[in-house]
């Protein structure tokens, strides 16, 4: 990675410079990192939904209402060159939870390092629930 100059502290939207070679600075907001991490996590098999809470009914309801927030369940701590991600998710029944968590961790590392260019220092995964099936019925 290139050398960096500390960005001014702008509160929640910590910004940084990524291309010191040319004049001008590139700033990436927390929300962008969170969104990219969320999209990466959702693509992992065995992840039912990303975001804490009783997703059984609420997830379907939110999905139907078309207001799925792709940063829900993702918290990022963005520093000058590094980022830490906390993600909470609901897993599908039938997959080992630790393997889902490891795949999510890998997907977020890859998505954030490739697409954002920040160094990921840790991804903490919180499995908040396991999705059994619609209305608590096992799929046949």
């Amino acid at each position: 990675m290139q050398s960096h100059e500390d960005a001014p502290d702008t509160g929640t939207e910590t910004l940084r410079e990524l291309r010191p070679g040319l004049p001008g600075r590139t700033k990436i907001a927390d929300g962008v990192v969170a969104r990219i991490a969320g999209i990466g996590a959702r693509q992992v098999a065995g992840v039912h939904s990303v975001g804490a809470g009783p997703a059984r009914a609420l997830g379907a309801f939110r999905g139907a209402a078309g207001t799925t927030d792709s940063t829900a369940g993702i918290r990022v701590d963005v520093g000058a060159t590094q980022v830490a991600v906390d993600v909470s998710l609901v897993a599908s029944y039938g997959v080992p939870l630790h393997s889902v968590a490891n795949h999510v961790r890998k997907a977020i590392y890859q998505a954030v390092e490739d697409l954002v260019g920040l160094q990921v220092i840790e991804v903490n995964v919180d499995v908040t629930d396991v999705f059994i099936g619609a209305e608590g019925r096992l799929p046949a």
Partner: protein
Amino acid sequence: MTTPLNGHTRISTQALTSLAKAAAAQSLGVQPADVRIDWRDDGGLLALSVVAPMTIPDLNLVLRQGPSYPASQGSVLDMAVTAKAAIHHTVSSLSGSRLSRVDIRVSGARTSHGAKVQ
């Protein structure tokens, strides 16, 4: 990828409970909503108690076809013991938690008409 992956994984009680519910329901042939799950501390290890009804074969069919009736998996007690081992195995392998014991209380019986088996 060369970067080592850091960070911890937490599995909530709710997630463990849903997992155990589904595993128990599958093993006992009932729906997850019928299953009650309780976790206890067993000298530092995790003990699971399950209260659920279970599906038993139609006794008229068993009587007519004798003990060789394919749906018959032994007595209710035998079936519960088999289910107990299955629940232990499923919950341990899916959650990664080591269970010290699984206790089952059969709270009722549902009759199956053999359509699911054979």
